[in-house]
């Protein structure tokens, strides 16, 4: 375990100095751990309790990085990394499930725990991913904001710190990114909001 921590720290340091392959390797390490943590929360935990990505990412941080001498430039940076991992986990899972279902349709998930604002058509991960890739090609930073805020549950301030920009930029880009994704999802304002 401590061996793994050392490796994570070493890779993180290499990555922050522009070592691209270190990113992939780091992703592999963090990815598996995040998956395990998430699985455990859902399988062993209270199935009706809250599972949120913020918690997952914090737990991953405690497990993987904490007690290290902190080669990560900031916690926010690690969270941003985990947000990327969360994105991959969800996409991989959606794909696997799609294959599993053998054409049985998409994984449809509600995006918000607030009844009246979730449109009648539930939306799904792969549409988000599809739109997010398009967004990424046009505005990498906006896509980064989505990763941090949506997949990592990071706060505006954490996101700004991780992306080395201002909170105002994060807020503005988050608003627009949400509009694009919601639009791509075919989201329409609820014409008949449910009780």
């Amino acid at each position: 375990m401590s061996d793994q921590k050392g490796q994570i720290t070493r890779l993180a340091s290499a990555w922050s100095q522009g070592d691209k392959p270190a990113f992939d390797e780091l992703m592999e390490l963090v990815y598996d751990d995040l998956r395990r943590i998430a699985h455990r929360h859902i399988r062993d935990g209270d199935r009706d309790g809250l599972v949120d990505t913020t918690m997952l990412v914090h737990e991953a941080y405690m497990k993987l990085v904490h007690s290290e001498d902190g080669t990560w430039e900031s916690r926010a940076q690690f969270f941003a990394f985990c947000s990327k991992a969360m994105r991959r986990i969800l996409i991989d899972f959606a794909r696997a499930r799609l294959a599993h279902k053998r054409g049985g349709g998409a994984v449809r998930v509600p995006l918000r725990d607030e009844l009246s604002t979730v449109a009648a058509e539930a939306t799904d991960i792969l549409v988000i991913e599809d739109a997010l890739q398009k967004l990424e090609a046009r505005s990498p930073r906006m896509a980064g904001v989505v990763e941090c805020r949506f997949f990592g549950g990071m706060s505006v301030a954490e996101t700004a710190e991780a992306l080395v920009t201002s909170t105002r930029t994060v807020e503005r880009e988050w608003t627009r990114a949400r509009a694009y994704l919601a639009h791509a999802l075919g989201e329409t304002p609820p014409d008949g909001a449910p009780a």
Partner: protein
Amino acid sequence: MTSPENSERSEGVWDRWDEVDGMLERALDMPAADRDAFLAKACEGDPALLKLMEDLVAAAGHDTLSGPGDQLLRAAFEDGATAPGAGADPMIGQTLGPYRVTGVLGMGGMGTVYRGERADGTFERQVAIKVLRGSLLQTPDLADRFRLERQILASLGHPGIAQMIDGGMSQAGRPYFVMEHVEGDPIDRFADRHALDVDARIRLTLKVAEVVDYAHRHLVVHRDLKPGNILVTSTGQVKLLDFGIAKLLEPPAGAGSDAGSATTRLGSRFVTPEWSAPEQLLGERVSTQTDVYSLTALLYYLLTGRRPYEGRDHESILQRVVRGEEPTAPSAAVAGASRPGPGLGRPGERSPGAGADELRRRLAGDLDAILLRGLQSRPEERYASVAAFSDDLQRYLSGEAVTARGDAFLYRARKFTRRHRAPLAVAAGAFLLVAGSAVGLAVQSARVAAERDRAEAAATQATQEAETARQVTTFLVELFQGSDPRLADADTVSVRGLLDRGAARVDEELAGQPAVRASLLEALGRVYLSMGEHLQADLLLERAIDLRRDSLPDQAGLAESLSLRGIAASDAQDTRLAIESYREAISLLEEDRRDSTLAKAYLGLGSALARSNLPDSAEASLRRGVDLLNLTGARSDAYLDAATSLAGAVRRRGELDEAESLYRRVLAGRRLASDQNPEALAVALNNLAVVRRMQEEYDEAAGLYEEALGIMTGILGPGHPTSLMMAGNMATALSRGGHVEEAVAVQRERVSAARDRWPGGHWRVGEALMNLGGELLVAGRPEEAIEPLVEALEMMMIEIGPMHAWTDVYRGWLATAGMAAGREEGARELFDNSLQGLATYAELPGDGQVKSMLLGLLRVMDRYGLADEAARYRALTDLETGS
């Protein structure tokens, strides 16, 4: 699933990205009331664009993706059908009492809401049916209580409450409610859409308070007041949803002492933490005071765009509450609000800073006091009732003294200032840094300019520039020290605020000194740029450009400002302006080839053109930049990076020979610097190898890959995914070049490297095994291929699952080896499984990865004459004969 409908829906966005995103940004920056007029003008003559923009603006106000994704995660990790698709939901078509379920309206933490109508057709009324998640109410006691509460709720008759019509248990034992189906906007959205000002938002909240007060007088507490539960219809009628439902999900209050902990858990489970009162989070007794808290939180949100405790999860909010931490005073929360704040009846006001300032002043004082009073952690310290809260708001509206503002508030205000002293000091430090760098930049640009003009009038120029720099410094220092008393106002100090003030003062105070003004504007522009405030940067640079154009003969300085604006415009996604700026900068600099500004402008122009989907002009521009850098510093990283992008563009266009020669130049450059950056050398080797392989020069490609692989293995180890990728490429090149046995050897090494790396198994090990098996088949040794292919298939079944499309391809590989080795029966069954699996894989046409895997498989099937089977695979896809 990417349905065609969905992709088409957004095509407009992606095709016209720069235009659309720039316009959206501008629209969202302005007060909501101005947007329609702005969009109408901006989209004149293009109704499709107008429609798109309207949709986007609406979507931006629609808080769809705000969640931390907990539902998303849950759905992703839970097996089984807990995340029903709209079409596949088994509830649809069922009848619940006299109602038939006709569709899904939405989903939430408690369950799913369906659209319904009366099954017996007695009347046409549409209803909303909320079906709660099962297994929550499985005890007889709870079922009884549920029935009783439902009757109480049904007795509430107020036009502001969505009528509870019916309720019961579904056949599966899941409780459901039938409610009036309300059409309207969530209250926050309504307020934003109608650009309601502070007073109107308060009056709207008063309407909600009146309804809540009515319910309290009938002994019903809402318990879950939040924007999503409060709709406003088109006629302005407020409608509260879900009255008292949260309570139905809790055990009875007096359920025995040992139920305490259970209450805690259950009590907090169904409410939304951001809107919940502390006693709910703590699992303590809920009362009418609980609604006072939530109502106050709602008004706080409507006025500031923030929630009292910004935090996502239950835990962190709870901790803050337990520590007795008070919410941020509303006036202080306004600064970084994520939503457009209340319109202030000044539609002409464009500067975001000024709007926030005014709002802050409106909130400071009475409204701060009222809201903080309503948000006290201890219920007994809040307003005694909703009516008392309403009365104080009424007093505020009519200009009378509010009760919340007593000594207690003064005390809290002082406490607040004390608590925030440290951050304020930090902000001051940050400003010094920024100011320092602005000065540095100004001095630096002065120095650059001085160098440039050395040939002429060296002495005078230098004196002038030094004077410019000195004045810039003085200006910034004065700005920071602040003669304006408002700067001493602790709450408003921010770097951003100071910069804004600085920008405003430049014109007032330096009117007679265009050179200083231009330098200062440029310096401030750079600071804004570094803060990501590209619009603000753009504004300042625009003014610097105008100044230089009008009054200064300094062509190079103008070009510098223009290039800088090119960067700002690129950042702001305004590609058209970026292109214009770079082009003008280039036209000014064309004569002076020694200047690296020119090369950078060409590279900037190139990437802007590439984003505008003009590959040819982009290439020409990149090429020019590369050529210029070649003159000034052919070995610089900037040059090599640019040449690499250019080579990529050329290769994608299919000009392999030219790409080759560019990559060779890059390679030569990287070799010179291989000590400092061996990885870049490996990448350059790999890139050239890719082109050589496409040119069917397999031997050279294999040699290049080998060298790249050696470097990468040295840095990262043989089991690293990048090393494995390069080894795979190398094996392919060897195999294509006819060196099949060598390819087999490389594949074997690859398998053992992967095994060492992931001793417990991993899909990458499976992939390496599959490639080894494939290569053995190519080598004509099917018997030997079977063993690694069996292991590969087993590994994939474990690592990614038996039903995965990749696993189906692996089945195909093993089947092919089986046929080739003469073991027909088993092989046929595997083929059938593989084909059946792939036939139902809906994503196949769009899944390039699986298709390319199939292409490799087909090539080997053709080699062994398995024409029938190959035809069946081809029929599944649009794959032509394997090349």
